[in-house]
């Protein structure tokens, strides 16, 4: 081999190394900073506002939702013209009792649109195809009729994000739609759940991460991970569908009990606490058990919200 050939080979190797280095740097997934989370907009005198509106079986659901949201201050407090709003219903699987009533979702979409925002109803189901599930429970058609775009998050681009305040979870992968939205609204159903005892707004946020991340949470420490997740993916408003509540067991296969109630709050920890109390009351279980629900107290410790009833102002209303 002469010098010429040697230099040529060296040059070629350098080119390959250089290109690989550049490609690696460009293509590797980069961790994004945490999503900006705004403080609770629905407060009064330092207390979190929470509304509970109960109607009759024949009461129009849209009226219930409207009263609930207006009682705490209205949609206008978080949504203004031109904002992108993601409405996250709690679907999980193809089960009409597990998911919220499509009319509740449609009412929320309508309120957002009245306030001037554009709506995307997004979901990443833990079981099966999100597209199929959304369609099966009736939310796709109801949301589209109300003027929202329906998106299956599993087709969306993934974003890797850090969790600065996380105790067990220091980073998480979520989806671009969630990361980039201006406002996040959580629409769960009031349900029992085996391991975390209840599944309402805080657990609903698990449907914004890919299935592999859901697996990771279970491997690490489910309750703490839910709390850590909510420090970066926190709903600005929660509307709990308690028209029918799932009791005894969940999130599927429980006993549905008619409650005709809609609850709304800006603080997800507060609404989880009070809604869990309502559920326990309905079942005849001691309300003191709510304190033991791990993910709610973990979230409260991290400052996501408050689980202290003295710091929650409840506005109850019964519609005739």
């Amino acid at each position, binding site marked *: 081999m002469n010098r010429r050939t040697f230099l040529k080979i060296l040059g070629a190797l350098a080119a390959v190394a250089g290109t690989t280095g550049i490609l690696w740097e460009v293509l590797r997934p980069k961790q994004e900073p945490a999503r900006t989370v705004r403080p609770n907009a629905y407060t009064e005198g330092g207390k979190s506002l929470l509304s509970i509106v109960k109607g009759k079986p024949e009461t129009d659901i849209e009226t219930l939702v409207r009263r609930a949201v207006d009682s705490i201050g209205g949609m206008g407090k978080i949504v203004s013209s031109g904002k992108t709003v993601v409405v996250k219903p709690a679907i*999980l*699987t*193809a*089960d009409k009792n597990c998911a919220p009533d499509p009319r509740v979702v449609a009412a929320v979409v309508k309120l957002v649109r009245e306030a001037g925002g554009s709506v995307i109803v997004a979901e990443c189901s*833990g*079981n*099966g*195809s999100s597209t*199929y599930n959304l369609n099966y429970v009736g939310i796709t058609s109801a949301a589209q009729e109300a003027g929202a775009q329906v998106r299956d998050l599993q087709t969306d681009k993934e974003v890797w994000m850090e969790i600065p305040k996380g105790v067990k979870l220091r980073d998480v992968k979520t989806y671009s739609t969630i990361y980039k939205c201006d406002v996040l609204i959580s629409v769960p159903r009031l349900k029992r*759940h*085996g*391991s*975390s005892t209840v599944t309402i707004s805080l657990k609903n946020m698990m449907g914004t991460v890919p299935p592999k991340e*859901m*697996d*990771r949470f*279970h*491997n690490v*420490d*489910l*309750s703490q991970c839910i709390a850590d997740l909510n420090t970066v993916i926190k709903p600005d408003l929660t509307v709990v569908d308690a028209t029918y509540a799932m009791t005894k067991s969940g*999130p*599927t*296969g429980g006993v549905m009990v008619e409650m005709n109630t809609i609850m709304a709050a800006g603080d997800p920890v507060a609404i989880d606490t009070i809604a869990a109390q309502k559920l326990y009351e309905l079942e005849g279980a001691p309300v003191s058990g709510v304190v033991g629900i*791990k993910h709610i107290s973990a979230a409260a410790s991290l400052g996501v919200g408050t689980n202290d009833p003295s710091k929650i102002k409840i506005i109850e209303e019964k519609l005739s």
Partner: protein
Amino acid sequence: MRITRREFIKLLVEGAAGLGLLRFVSLVPLKGQADVVRPPGAVVEEQFNSLCVRCGICLEVCPTKAIVLAGFDDGIEAVDTPKIDPLSGPCEFFRGRCQEVMRCSKSCPTGALQTIDRKDVKLGSVEFDPGKCLAYKGKECIVCDEMCPVFEAITLTEDLKPVFHEEKCVGCGTCVHACPADPKALVLLPKGAKRVVW
């Protein structure tokens, strides 16, 4: 087309040798008659092996990618026949994309997979290894119970550990697919599978 006697005998011997070879190969199965979980509506194994022409249509129509091709380790007679692999995807015949129509059975051209009623389908049942289960290690996990579409095929003990009831299990593989443990605590076996007698 003339043929000499010599040639005829040569062909006869070749034929016998060929048949012998085929017989020998089928006597050397790596696992005897295939013992795999078949898609819903599958006929009994001897008939399945004849009826299945290995066209791959069921694999192509499956929306969850639950159907995969059997390899050589499932027995040489079963190579390229369809089987259910829950690690690739769960079978959603009981709840999900195939709950109205079981697409594989509907599209099978020869009848190796028959269209039967959903309630007559049992693909197999799961086998549980508590040593690998997160709940038995003290973690909060009841994903299998959460995802199981069959009422009370999986129940929980007082301290939230899963218990599996083989007689209610339909073998859909949803729990296996969803189990977050690595390695998984569940495996889908053809035990108790109901096959159609054709």
